[in-house]
């Protein structure tokens, strides 16, 4: 089990989740992807889509930077 990072703060819907899925596709089952994303649409959609598609959202927390969140997704 390994941990990986992905920054999608510069992406817009739907590329936010597209990029997340592409990274998740490279991981092994059980691996964790820390996704850095912006508040608003990405924060609403990425965790929801990840859950819908069978991934586990372990945590959602605001980072040191205001408006930037870290979403921990397990494959």
């Amino acid at each position, binding site marked *: 089990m390994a941990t990986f990072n992905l920054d999608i703060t510069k992406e817009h819907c*739907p*590329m936010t*989740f*597209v*990029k997340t*899925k*592409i990274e998740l*596709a490279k991981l092994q089952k059980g691996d964790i992807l820390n996704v850095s994303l912006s508040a608003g649409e990405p924060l609403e959609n990425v965790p929801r*889509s990840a859950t*819908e*598609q*069978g991934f586990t959202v372990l945590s959602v927390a605001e980072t040191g930077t205001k408006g930037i969140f870290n979403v921990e997704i397990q494959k």
Partner: protein
Amino acid sequence: MEFTEEQIVRYSRHILLKDVGVEGQEKISNGKVLIVGAGGLGAPVAFYLAAAGVGTIGIIDGDTVDLSNLQRQIIHFTADMGKTKVLSAKEKIAQLNPDVKVNAYQDLFTSANAFELIKDYDFIIDGTDNFPVKFLINDACVLAGKPFSHGGILRFDGQTFTHTQGNVCYRCLFNSPPPPNAVPTCSQAGVLGAIAGMLGTIQAAEALKYLTGVGELLTNRLLSFNAKTMDFRTVHTRRSPRCPICGEHPTVTTLIDYEQAACDILSHKNNS
């Protein structure tokens, strides 16, 4: 395979789908589909498979583009009149999606080339307008163990089913071709242009489902629709023990070129 940034954006709506995803798009990109006939059915099939990024699309057709084709064969444009249909289709595909490799065969699909043509493809599309070649596609695919989508349209009606090895084939449902001229062809009876798109896109969806392994194919079922009432009907079908090619005592063991209706042959002569 590793997708480029451009491909990720181009195929993003597939990648987003839970059942397709990156893995499914890779299967599509590695897929090889042969389309027999670049006409009313072949046109939408070629467009959608090209848009989807099917890696290799083969198109076989012996005809050239005629003015009367343009009412439904949407891959051909007015300026293409007189051009071979396979070249016209290849040019449009290249414009739509340069990722796709197109093998254009300016030829008729016959017993002499059928096995050689289907050999390298994963899935075959019947986009033909006549019974002899529909039976030939069925026979070649059944004997070679290749999956295919049958499609037929006439007037306001369409029908389609998908064959995979071990499932119902065209001859299980229709033993042998009707006598030449017994059933009118599109060129005699007419066809509402848009139903070519209705049926062709179903065939394209079946090809994509086959390549990705998503969902349930239209096997052992015959889907038919009538555009006047917009009624769609799916009839469950069974393999026939008396099927002349896949039944218990097969009589069709080699490929047969049945006689074509007189007007079909004439139109081929006129167009080629």
